[in-house]
């Protein structure tokens, strides 16, 4: 778009501080903008900050003025009963509501722009303030209150900010690197603050109006979440149909605050809740169930919004049913679990024990298995009296322990079955020299298990084919099971 390209050019010009040129560009821009699409302010604004009006055009725009006028009139008139027979879209009030929704989004954007303006101007004076006070309206109020004052003890910020933040602000102000602003800059800044605050009040008015008409616009949605929250949701989404098109997870997050200040506890901040947090249903659920309740509310609210956007149930009955459903579900979550019934014991041995098997169990059993030493001690040779610990048949008998003629009581632990299998596998892996050998290599291999091992180089040749041949009938295969006595 021509205006966009122009505005980018204007940025470049602004960097070189060529004001006159830029102002001309600016005026062209303004003219173009108002010619093009009335009230289309979504373009990226130019970055010339000298003139507030060039940045914030909304309040001057015709659209804004018209809608605000209508809203004021409507608010004075109070609520009136809508005509029953008319299709919603033709009703002028509905049109006004739709416009109001769009306008509130625009006002939001405008406030952000003005906030940037104020921030950039005030940076010279108090740069740290922007990171302490995030909310644009609060920032504007604080800036207005502080003005050009260097000593913050003279400034009373009560009521504008929570006291913790006031403290932080005062402390930071005492060590700030800012300098007082020149008079005209200060004036512009204060003007911008006023503008922001005015926009904020306008937005509130618009929202109040929408809220009062909410029962007519979206009866089902207002039944579930209440008209204030419904108005806010609609306002943020940009209209009832826009709200209806959103998935429920997005509806849940509409209006969610993003940042918490670093250094302040995040334990109390609730995750992933937006305007839904302000509904009555949410506030009355116990804290433990709140996240579930939030999801439930968001999904039912989305359903209601969809019904409303197609005008499917003008009386609001669907909303009532959904609300009942929500209440019932939350009740059910809060029920205590069913009382524990004392179970009678089963008949003994009626349920056979589930015996487990496998390698793990075998290894466990090995630890308590009868060792060879104990086995030998348990047996006796026929006709040969056994030796005993205290001699002469007193004390524990040694059985066959000492008797193999060796005179030693010690018996080696021996390898368990599992260890034998592992050792065999390990051996077969053949860490010795394989295949490609030169004539100078020997058949001796140094293996970790056996020490020095003589390997048969022919053995490798058979190994390759072993996968296809059966191991049961193979000539080179071993016994599959050897019992140890």
């Amino acid at each position, binding site marked *: 778009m021509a205006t966009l390209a122009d505005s980018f050019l204007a940025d470049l010009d602004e960097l070189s501080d060529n004001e006159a040129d830029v102002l001309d560009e600016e005026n062209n821009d303004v003219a173009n903008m108002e010619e093009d699409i009335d009230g289309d302010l979504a373009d990226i604004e130019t970055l010339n900050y000298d003139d507030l009006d060039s940045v914030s055009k909304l309040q001057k725009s015709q659209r804004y003025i018209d809608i605000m006028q209508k809203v004021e009139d409507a608010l004075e008139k109070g609520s009136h009963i809508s005509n029953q027979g008319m299709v919603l879209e033709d009703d002028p009030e509905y049109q006004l509501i739709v416009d109001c929704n769009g306008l509130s989004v625009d006002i939001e954007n405008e406030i952000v722009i003005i906030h940037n303006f104020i921030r950039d101007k005030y940076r010279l004076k108090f740069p740290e303030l922007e990171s302490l006070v995030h909310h644009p309206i609060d920032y504007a109020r604080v800036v207005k209150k502080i003005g050009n004052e260097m000593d913050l003890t003279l400034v009373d910020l009560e009521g504008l900010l929570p006291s913790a933040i006031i403290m932080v602000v005062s402390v930071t102000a005492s060590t700030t690197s800012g300098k007082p602003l020149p008079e005209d800059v200060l004036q512009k800044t204060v003007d911008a603050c006023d503008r922001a605050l005015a926009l904020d009040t306008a937005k509130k008015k618009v929202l109040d109006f929408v809220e009062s008409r909410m029962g007519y616009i979206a009866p089902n949605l207002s039944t579930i979440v209440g008209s204030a929250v419904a108005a806010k949701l609609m306002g943020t989404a940009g209209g009832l149909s826009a709200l209806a098109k959103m998935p429920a997870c997005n509806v849940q997050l509409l209006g969610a605050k993003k940042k918490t200040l670093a250094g302040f506890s995040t334990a109390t901040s609730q995750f992933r809740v937006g305007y839904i947090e302000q509904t009555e249903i949410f506030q009355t659920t116990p804290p433990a169930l709140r996240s579930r309740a939030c999801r439930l509310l968001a999904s039912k609210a989305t359903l209601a919004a969809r019904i409303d956007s197609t005008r499917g149930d003008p009386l609001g009955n669907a909303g009532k049913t959904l609300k009942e459903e929500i209440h019932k579900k939350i009740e059910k979550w809060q029920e205590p679990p069913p009382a524990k019934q*004392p179970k*009678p*014991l*089963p*008949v*003994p*041995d009626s349920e056979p024990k589930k015996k487990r098997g496998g390698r793990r169990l075998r290894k466990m059993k090995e630890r308590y298995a009868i060792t060879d030493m104990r086995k030998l001690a348990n047996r006796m040779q026929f006709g040969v009296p056994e030796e005993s610990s205290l001699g002469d048949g007193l004390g524990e008998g040694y059985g066959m322990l000492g008797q193999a003629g060796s005179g030693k009581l010690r018996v080696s632990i021996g390898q368990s079955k599992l260890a034998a299998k592992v050792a065999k596998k390990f051996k077969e892996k053949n860490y010795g020299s394989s295949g490609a050998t030169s004539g100078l290599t020997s058949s001796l291999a140094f293996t970790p298990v056996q020490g020095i091992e003589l390997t048969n180089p022919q053995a490798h040749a058979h190994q390759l084919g072993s996968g296809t041949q059966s191991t049961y009938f193979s000539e080179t295969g071993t016994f599959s099971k050897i019992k140890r006595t």
Partner: protein
Amino acid sequence: MSYLLPHLHSGWAVDQAILAEEERLVVIRFGHDWDETYTCGFRILTDMKSPGGNREYRMDEVLASVAETIKNFAVIYLVDITEVPDFNTTYELYDPSTVMFFFRNKHIMIDLGTGNNNKINWALKDKQEFIDIVETVYRGLKGTF
């Protein structure tokens, strides 16, 4: 606690009870319901050192609390020996509380280490101990059918 368990009011009832059960062990306590020091377990008496010895007062209480748990393999009855004196000589019921086990019309003997294998003639305090005894008896019997 005695009101929680079924009573048998005549010798015939006792016989019928023993004959009726095919699959379950029949546990019969011979004694008196009102024998506070030995059978019933009113808490007031726990603090008083009554002359009968207040260690032995909870038999009925134990039986009542255990009845639901072992109902799959045992059934418990109470018999008042003044009301039903028929068995006093045959089973030598001279103690304040006597518990005997029957299965399929047969009296079961248990090695309790007391020398008397026919009955439990003291008041058990421990529920688990009693459940273990009954379970052991039942396991021993399982092999016979």
